[in-house]
């Protein structure tokens, strides 16, 4: 142990002072069942390292020890399962903040979903800003300051618990003082601006079109049990920005060598972050392996903190002079032109194997350097993820050995290390300059006063050397880990190339490199580098895999937000809904509507209830809540002409006070919707549509009106919700409406397909004689305000006739008995009115209407088109399953050899109380000419014989209509 590390309680690797943790407070958390101490400000990773723990779990395929390899979201190694307070899989030790009561386990590459419901609340918030800055490191803070000082509306988001970015993990000075002091001043200044939203613990995870960025804020995760219940746990910020400034920094990348997966192996910059931000020494004796200057700072800082730095191994032939002098002053040996070829150790690295770079495999030249910490730096990758998501092109910069933004995007600028600008001074200058340019393009004037903090001059830089992997001296590449989380090695890449794969996209999927929780933040570019070396092509020719949202994983619960359970989709209920509930209705969903399906009495199942309801309607009287039917108010001097063009039949000739059934077709002649039309006045019609077709029909009408017939003086409005509609149906329905509305409802006084205004206790009611069952029937239309009272009065008046409320199932049976199709059930977009046996509804007089020309197409004249028929099972017992196929026997009474020709299919099928047998509607090839034939329907392993008839099986002569 070094003299500087304070053996403080049970955390022997905690420094004496420094870091951003609250040393006055101690929290306890559990790791693998063991209780450990930590300080507020710690992550699980920093707390574990403070206790000398590097290993978190084991690997997914090989079961090798896995540990902490980085200090933030790019860590490929340290995965956890959170057990308490709420189970969550696959979180990183480096990003989970500790709190009292946290309990976590290391996991072998795979977590476990919670088995209990997540009761936390999630929500979302919209922002509209001039400038969104992603990342609150030095470049991002400066960009936000420049924008805010210019009076722009600004959002600044940063994924860590506090602002500062790289300044939190280095000793960089600004204005001659530690950089974090400038960070504090900058955030305080931003807080002064009323139009600045500054969010920490907020990850911008997706960039979409037109400046739209999604960010997830972890609002209470770090509070554990202290989280207030009224605050959402996580929030999705939906940010629409005039301009996006990406200041996301850079990720250090490793060099691959044999046994590079042993815990204790870590990125060099991460060790600096653990030291400076968390006050933790990640080891006691370190070897630093680098291809560039940046790791020298880690070596110096660790040495100053008391870590024994056994060696700096630099692949380059020459060490940077100034840094070498710093190390010499600390007695740290530098070995240039050397590489780490492997490690020793079991659950923790115990030695690094150091050999000359590019030398012949020679055991004698390999030195075994003891260490418990092996720091690696293979260079830095600008975090171009968001830029790439915005479809920015990348280029490979040979000098930096990294992929960088290759172009300026409209509406999105990359600054700082994310753009390859690695000096503090350069990053600040660039952030101000680029933000000013963006403001100017948006027409905002840049602030006159916008000073930059003064950064200390860095040492001159010696060019990095590009090194992706160190070949194993023995040639065995099967323990050279490219993706330690996936246990994918250089051998796997070699195998992929051997299998003929050339694209990094294919190699990714073949090897699984880059498919783990980190999505290849450190392994992806290394895989490209190794692939390029194996293929003998430059990395620029090989390219990268595609960067897609989300940048880091986001829980589905967070994305769902408040749109769960009852709030997932609106529920529409009619004004009589409570009555239906009170009377035991079983509901079915029709679009968003809740409709009573049937009203079972005690002990009834659906079949018995529906048979009872059907019998009641055909023998007495029933009442249905038809309020969900679509209703469109069509007004204007040209309303009649308009409907003539849309319906297949003539509507303009309809007299005020009359009702007409109509069918609407697409231009292709196929049935779109049907329903009744009431002429309310000379210039006003009420169009009734199917429940499911209401919105579609209104859209259809608007489309023709606006795009083809703007000259027609017609206006449309949906009045579905305004009018309740109650069919009162059956031979005794006349008695009910006559009593309730005090009218002469005789067949002579009130004709079929007529309507009239009546009153109920001073409330205007529209009463129409319309039948969807073939029975004497009435439709009661009344304003929703009074509808419940009218319904109850109708039910009361019908009581002496045994009035029976019935649901959609009975309605379907009754209409099917009459051969009335349900559009969308008995039709499927390939069915004409003629196919439905409704040639009578197609006008021969009108010169044109939508669909007319298509009826004359040869295809629509074919006699073998599928036509609507009814099927009566000969056994009088089988209810044919809807969707069943219809087949025919050969002359010899046998099925034809397979494939057996399909003649059609069953579209509706029910048991008929009236016929005392089941029946079905079907679309059958040449069906109109097949009435009387016997065909077969396979049901399970039986062939059920069916008789083909016309589609009307009850009262084909229409005798029941007048009661």
């Amino acid at each position, binding site marked *: 142990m070094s003299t500087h590390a304070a053996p403080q309680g049970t955390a022997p690797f905690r420094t004496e002072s420094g870091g951003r943790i609250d040393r006055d407070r101690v929290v306890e958390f559990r790791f693998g069942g063991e209780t450990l101490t930590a300080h507020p400000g710690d992550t699980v990773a920093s707390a574990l390292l403070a206790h000398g723990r590097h290993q978190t779990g084991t690997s997914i395929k090989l079961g090798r020890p896995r540990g902490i390899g980085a200090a933030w979201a790019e860590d490929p190694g340290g995965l956890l399962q959170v057990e308490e307070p709420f189970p969550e899989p696959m979180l990183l030790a480096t990003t989970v903040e500790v709190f009292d009561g946290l309990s976590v386990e290391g996991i072998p590459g795979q977590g476990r979903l919670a088995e209990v419901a997540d009761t936390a609340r999630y929500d979302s918030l919209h922002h509209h800003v001039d400038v969104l800055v992603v990342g609150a490191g030095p470049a991002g803070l400066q960009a936000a300051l420049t924008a805010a000082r210019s009076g722009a509306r600004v959002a600044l988001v940063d994924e860590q618990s506090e602002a500062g970015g790289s300044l939190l993990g280095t000793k960089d000075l600004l204005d001659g003082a530690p950089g974090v002091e400038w960070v504090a001043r900058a955030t305080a200044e931003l807080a002064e601006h009323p139009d600045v939203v500054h969010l920490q613990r907020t990850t911008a995870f997706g960039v*979409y*079109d*037109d400046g*739209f960025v999604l960010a997830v804020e972890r609002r209470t995760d770090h509070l554990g049990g202290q989280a207030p219940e009224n605050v959402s746990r996580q929030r999705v910020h939906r940010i*629409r920005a005039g301009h996006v400034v990406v200041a996301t920094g850079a990720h250090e990348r490793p060099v691959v060598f044999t046994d590079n997966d042993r815990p204790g192996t870590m990125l060099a910059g991460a060790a600096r972050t653990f030291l400076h931000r968390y006050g933790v020494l990640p080891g006691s004796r370190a070897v630093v392996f680098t291809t560039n200057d940046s790791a020298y700072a880690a070596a110096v800082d660790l040495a100053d903190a008391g870590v024994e730095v056994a060696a700096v191994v630099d692949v380059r032939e020459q060490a940077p002079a100034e840094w070498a002098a710093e190390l010499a002053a600390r007695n740290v040996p530098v070995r240039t032109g050397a590489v780490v070829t492997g490690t020793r150790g079991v659950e923790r690295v115990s030695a690094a194997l150091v050999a000359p770079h590019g030398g012949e495999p020679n055991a004698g030249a390999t030195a075994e350097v003891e260490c418990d910490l092996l720091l690696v730096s293979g260079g830095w990758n600008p975090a171009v993820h968001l830029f790439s998501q915005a479809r920015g092109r990348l280029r490979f910069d040979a000098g930096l050995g990294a992929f960088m933004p290759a172009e300026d995007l409209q509406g999105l600028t990359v600054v700082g290390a994310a753009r390859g600008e690695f000096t503090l001074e350069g990053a600040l200058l660039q952030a101000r300059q680029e933000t000013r340019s963006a403001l100017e393009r948006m027409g905002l004037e840049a602030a006159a006063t916008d000073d930059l903090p003064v950064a200390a001059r860095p040492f001159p830089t010696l060019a990095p050397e590009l090194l992706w992997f160190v070949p194993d001296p023995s040639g065995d590449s099967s323990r050279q880990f490219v993706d330690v989380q996936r246990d994918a090695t250089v051998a796997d890449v070699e195998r992929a190339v051997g299998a003929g794969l050339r694209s990094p996209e294919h190699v990714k999927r073949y090897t699984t490199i880059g498919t783990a929780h980190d999505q290849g933040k450190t392994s992806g570019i290394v895989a490209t580098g190794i692939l390029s070396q194996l293929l003998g092509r430059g990395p620029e020719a090989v390219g990268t895999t595609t960067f897609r949202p989300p940048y880091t994983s986001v829980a589905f619960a967070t994305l769902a937000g408040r749109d769960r359970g009852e709030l997932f989709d609106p529920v529409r209920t009619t004004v009589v809904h409570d009555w239906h509930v009170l009377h035991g209705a079983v509901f079915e969903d029709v679009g968003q509507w809740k409709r009573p399906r049937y009203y079972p009495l005690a002990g009834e199942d659906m079949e018995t209830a529906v048979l009872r309801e059907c019998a009641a309607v055909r023998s007495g009287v029933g009442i249905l809540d038809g309020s969900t039917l679509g209703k469109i108010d069509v007004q204007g001097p040209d309303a009649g002409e308009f409907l003539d063009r849309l319906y297949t039949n003539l509507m303009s000739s309809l007299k005020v006070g009359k009702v007409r059934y109509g069918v609407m077709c697409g*231009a*292709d002649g196929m049935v779109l919707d049907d329903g009744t039309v009431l002429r309310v006045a000379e210039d006003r019609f009420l169009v009734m549509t199917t429940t499911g077709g209401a919105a579609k029909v209104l*859209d259809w009408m*608007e*489309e023709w009106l*606006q*795009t*083809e017939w*703007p000259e027609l003086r017609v206006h449309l409005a949906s009045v579905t919700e305004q009018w309740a509609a109650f069919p009162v149906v059956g031979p005794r329905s006349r008695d009910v409406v006559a009593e309730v509305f005090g009218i002469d409802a005789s067949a002579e006084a009130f004709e079929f397909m007529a309507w009239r205004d009546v009153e109920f206790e001073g409330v205007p009611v529209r009463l129409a004689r319309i039948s969807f069952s073939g029975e004497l029937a009435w439709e009661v239309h009344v304003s929703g305000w009074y509808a419940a009272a009218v319904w109850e009065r109708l039910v009361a008046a019908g009581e002496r006739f045994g009035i029976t409320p019935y649901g959609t199932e009975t309605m379907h049976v009754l209409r099917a008995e009459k051969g009335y199709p349900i559009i969308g059930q008995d039709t499927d977009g390939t069915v004409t009115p003629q196919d439905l046996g409704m040639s009578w509804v197609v006008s021969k007089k009108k*010169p*044109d209407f939508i669909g*007319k*020309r*298509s009826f*004359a*197409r*040869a295809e629509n004249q074919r006699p073998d088109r599928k036509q609507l028929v009814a099927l009566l099972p000969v056994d009088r017992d089988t209810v044919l399953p809807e969707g069943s196929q219809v087949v025919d026997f050969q002359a010899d009474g046998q099925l034809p050899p397979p494939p057996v020709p399909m003649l059609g299919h069953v579209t509706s099928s029910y048991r008929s109380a009236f016929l005392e047998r089941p029946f079905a509607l079907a679309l059958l090839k040449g069906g109109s000419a097949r009435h009387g034939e016997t065909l077969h329907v396979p049901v399970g392993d039986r062939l059920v014989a069916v008789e083909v008839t016309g589609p009307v099986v009850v009262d084909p002569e229409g005798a029941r209509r007048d009661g």
Partner: protein
Amino acid sequence: MQLIECPWCGPREEIEFHYGGQAHVAYPQDPSALDDREWAEYLFFRDNTKGLFRERWSHAAGCRRWFNAERDTVTYQFTTVYAPQEKGPVDR
């Protein structure tokens, strides 16, 4: 989430809009004068342009009005929007 410029409401999010296919495919003056092939071409045939394409949109969850737009089918960028009865930018 793209922003689409409704000529009447201004820029709105794309989920508020419905796509209406190729623009300037007028309903034939006299459908009965067309043979089956000509009528089928009106019904079923549309251009599949790579690049600038004039198409119909409706601001379905907004003002419910139809308009025409010219859009690049490669970049999805809208170049202009205009009223249904106006001519396209190239025809002006």
